[in-house]
């Protein structure tokens, strides 16, 4: 008998083993839900799959009677817009300051301590300030996301820039490169795939801040909706929404990874090899 650390599951087994926890959770849910519904058919805590179907139909297919819109789509669009803007702006800020901080000692001495302190402020603690300063509209939600993830992206990229072997910077100078040319031809292209990595790592936080902001002040959005229907204990809506959010998060992560692989083939080889 081989040691456990040496046993590699085959391809089929790997899929089965991977699916197992999902199936297990589903089965447990079905049993628990059934058990509760038998005792009390009006129980709202663990709705049956049938009521999920009805809720999904109500939210995702039929138009809302009051607004005339399909709620799931309006919510998704609103949330994704906020998220996209927040992540996009964070990426730009992170790239700009990450490269400057990582590459130029004078700027690093000047900004690095400030950014470190900035990144320690709990973003949710300043949410009230954002609401006061930027109002309850879209801006404060986007700013919260930016505030939540941009410092991380900046620091992460600064580190990645500093990790680029010094030999490369010296070599570039012996080839006649100016600071600007080092930045755009040596640093920027090597840091872009790392930016994608950093964004993937901050997706979770971005969603967290989005949902928090929407829960507190919004008129649409995925976070707004689940906190709204919580008042009626509408688990039949909340659970599909959570599943949908999870799916969107997964898609974004997957998309970013695919983009990285497609746009920076050298990076995959570099990091997987040697």
């Amino acid at each position, binding site marked *: 008998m081989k040691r456990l650390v040496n046993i590699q599951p085959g391809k089929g087994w790997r899929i089965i083993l991977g699916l197992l926890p999902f199936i297990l959770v589903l089965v447990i849910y079905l049993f628990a839900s059934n058990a509760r519904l038998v005792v009390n058919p009006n129980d709202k805590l663990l709705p049956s799959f049938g009521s999920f179907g009805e809720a999904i139909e109500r939210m995702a297919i039929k138009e809302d009677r009051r607004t005339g819109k399909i709620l799931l789509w309006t919510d998704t669009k609103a949330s994704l817009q906020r998220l996209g803007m927040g992540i996009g702006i964070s990426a730009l800020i992170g790239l700009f300051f990450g490269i400057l901080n990582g590459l130029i000692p004078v700027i690093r001495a000047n900004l690095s301590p400030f950014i470190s302190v900035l990144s320690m402020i709990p973003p949710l603690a300043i949410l009230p300030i954002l609401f006061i300063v930027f109002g309850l509209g879209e801006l404060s939600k986007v700013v919260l996301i930016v505030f939540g993830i941009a410092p991380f992206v900046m620091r992460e990229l600064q580190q990645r820039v500093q990790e680029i072997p010094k030999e*490369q910077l010296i070599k570039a100078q012996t080839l006649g490169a100016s600071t600007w040319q080092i930045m755009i031809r040596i640093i920027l292209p090597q840091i872009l795939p790392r930016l994608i990595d950093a964004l993937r790592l901050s997706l979770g936080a971005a969603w967290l801040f989005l949902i928090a902001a929407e829960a507190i002040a919004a008129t649409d959005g995925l976070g707004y909706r689940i906190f709204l229907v919580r008042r009626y204990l509408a688990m039949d809506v909340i659970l599909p929404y959570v599943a949908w959010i999870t799916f969107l998060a997964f898609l974004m992560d997957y998309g970013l990874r695919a983009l990285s692989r497609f746009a920076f083939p050298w990076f995959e080889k570099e990091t997987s090899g*040697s």
Partner: protein
Amino acid sequence: MADNIINVSKVWKEYGDAVVLERLNLDVKEGEFCTIVGASGCGKTTFLRMLLGEEIPSRGNILLEDSPLPEEPTHDRGIVFQRYSVFPHLTVLQNVILGLEFTQSKFTGFLFGKAKRIAVNEAKEMIAAVGLSDARNKLPSALSGGMQQRLAIAQSLIKKPKILLLDEPFGALDPGIRADMHELILSLWDQTGTTVFMVTHDLKEGFSLGTRLLVFDKVRHDPQSPDRYGASITYDIPLGMTDEKILNKIKSTTGTD
């Protein structure tokens, strides 16, 4: 005086209290091929870094063609390190063109149209000269160690540097490949007439390559504080004057082989 490309006089290098190099004096003529050997940690890399302008002597001065050496790396001194000399995100061709693009395209760092075609042709010749034509469109990660060093050499030489600095460029290569690289570097040196400084751990390499052998070693020792005295040049031997006896003597003093 005028025909010395490098002039090192009374150079010391200290880091804090630790003296790494002391009393270095050296005149090197244009076109010489100096190999540098010495025990590990004796300051060979530090010396190259001073020639490069990456480090500045604590005392004394270094002249390049009779004027003070620029205090940062510039295009007239090329370098090949043991590793990390090539850019992983660029193909072989792109790596070699880069040096031309840096000088000709100040703002974007890219060349276009006719200028690009001329640069590509020049780069292709350089790549052919180091024997990498078949790998022109490959990324460095797809090259062997020896090929990467060939690329690093081509990349430097396209700038036609006055001085080429090599810091154990073949240290990480197999002996067989190393012999090929020796041939390559000698023929390139012959064609370009550039002045070469090459650090090596391999004393045989130091003896067989080049026109001049420099041995770095400590003359004075203080058993109580090993950092009190630095290394200086203990042997400066023109090639052809070397023999077994000197080889063994250097071996025993520097501990290299």
